[in-house]
């Protein structure tokens, strides 16, 4: 099913399932991009990143990008573009109701501009988007209801922004706020590199190179911000994606091990059991 819904207030929602697609465009408005199956690859400047069902990407107004889908399995893409006026009204309304959340996210910025990176698709934004998509898939036309969900998508995005950007920047041991923000921007490059290349071997040197940090600096600041080393972060991500494969496919465990970038099935099983207190096979049976 594919649809492009343009609301009266110029918010735009796209949903579509494709195996192959290539688009090149500039975002007219602030947009949030998801996939519900498979993965979609984005190029923003020199950065290449992929979003999976456990993550989402935001793009600011005016960003040039290309996106590509090239997958053996159909990829369900879902995106929302928020009209500038809707964003302004949201900001003005929320500044009064929940000033702490918005002020910490926006500071004194007049423009709504956010870190263009990959965020975890968990918590309230996951539930709000899933409800919205279900309503749209079933043909709901009530724009007041749809806008209610869009409003709550922004509320829950701000919550994630606060956790992923503001709180992580605060954890960095630098006095200067602009230094904290710049280091976190580079750490987010490392994070999106891990999100995108999780299924292959990644050396610390290439990760440090991609994020424009020295290896030592990367290791120290990554741990401060994410409370995990890059290696621990990668293992956690791989295990999380193994869960998705075990739940949604019939691939044998050995193949899942290969697909998520582990080399040794026995270490995968041991780590899976340590993290989730169950074996991969038992997890699959109970899912």
């Amino acid at each position, binding site marked *: 099913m594919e649809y492009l819904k343009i609301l009266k207030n110029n918010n735009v929602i796209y949903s579509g399932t494709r195996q192959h697609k290539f688009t090149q465009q500039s975002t007219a408005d602030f947009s949030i991009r998801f996939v519900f199956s498979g993965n979609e690859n984005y190029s923003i400047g020199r950065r290449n990143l992929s979003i999976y069902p456990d993550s989402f990407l935001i793009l600011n107004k005016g960003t040039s990008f290309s996106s590509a889908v090239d997958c053996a399995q159909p990829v369900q893409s879902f995106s929302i573009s928020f009209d500038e006026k809707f964003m302004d009204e949201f900001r003005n309304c929320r500044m009064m109701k929940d000033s702490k959340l918005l002020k910490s996210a926006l500071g004194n910025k007049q423009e709504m501009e956010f870190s263009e990176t990959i965020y975890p698709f968990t*918590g*309230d934004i996951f*539930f709000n988007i899933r*409800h919205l998509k279900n309503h749209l898939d079933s043909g709901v036309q009530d724009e007041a*209801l749809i806008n*209610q*969900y869009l409003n*709550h998508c922004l509320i829950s995005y701000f919550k994630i922004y606060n956790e992923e950007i503001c709180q992580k920047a605060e954890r960095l041991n630098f006095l200067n706020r602009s230094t904290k923000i710049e280091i976190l921007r580079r750490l987010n490059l490392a994070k999106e590199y891990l999100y995108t290349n999780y299924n292959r071997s990644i050396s610390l040197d290439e990760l440090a190179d991609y994020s424009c940090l020295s290896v030592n600096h990367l290791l120290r600041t990554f741990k401060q911000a994410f409370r995990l080393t890059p290696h621990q972060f990668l293992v956690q991500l791989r295990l999380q994606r193994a869960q998705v494969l075990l739940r949604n496919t019939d691939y044998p465990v050995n193949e899942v091990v290969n697909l998520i970038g582990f080399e040794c099935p026995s270490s995968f099983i041991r780590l899976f059991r340590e993290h989730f207190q169950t074996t991969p096979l038992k997890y699959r049976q109970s899912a």
Partner: protein
Amino acid sequence: MDMTIKYIPVFTEDVEKQLGFFTDKLGLEVSGTKSVLFGQECTFIKTDNPDVFIALFKQQNNTKSAPIIISTDDCLNDYHSLKLAGVNFYNEPQYTPIGLGAEFLDPFGNRYLLIEERSYC
């Protein structure tokens, strides 16, 4: 709209004494403590019906009548439908540690809490 009563609220001035009544006298079992009703801590007690719990709250000075707690699978949708039907809500849906909730009144001032529990882990 799929709304079911899931929690029966009980307010008490002495939570420990009230818990003792439920567990020692009535033989009920404590299910766990969670935060519900916009930050006010409560203790859940199991009943014979596995889908219905007693929610035990500490009586606050400003506590009005006990609300009827209704479980929903989509709070925003029900909030929107009920608003259209003319139901009077205290406030917009709010995020709580266990999910999204909104409180409304009937024409006689009885309180209802609509709650969509969300599994965040």
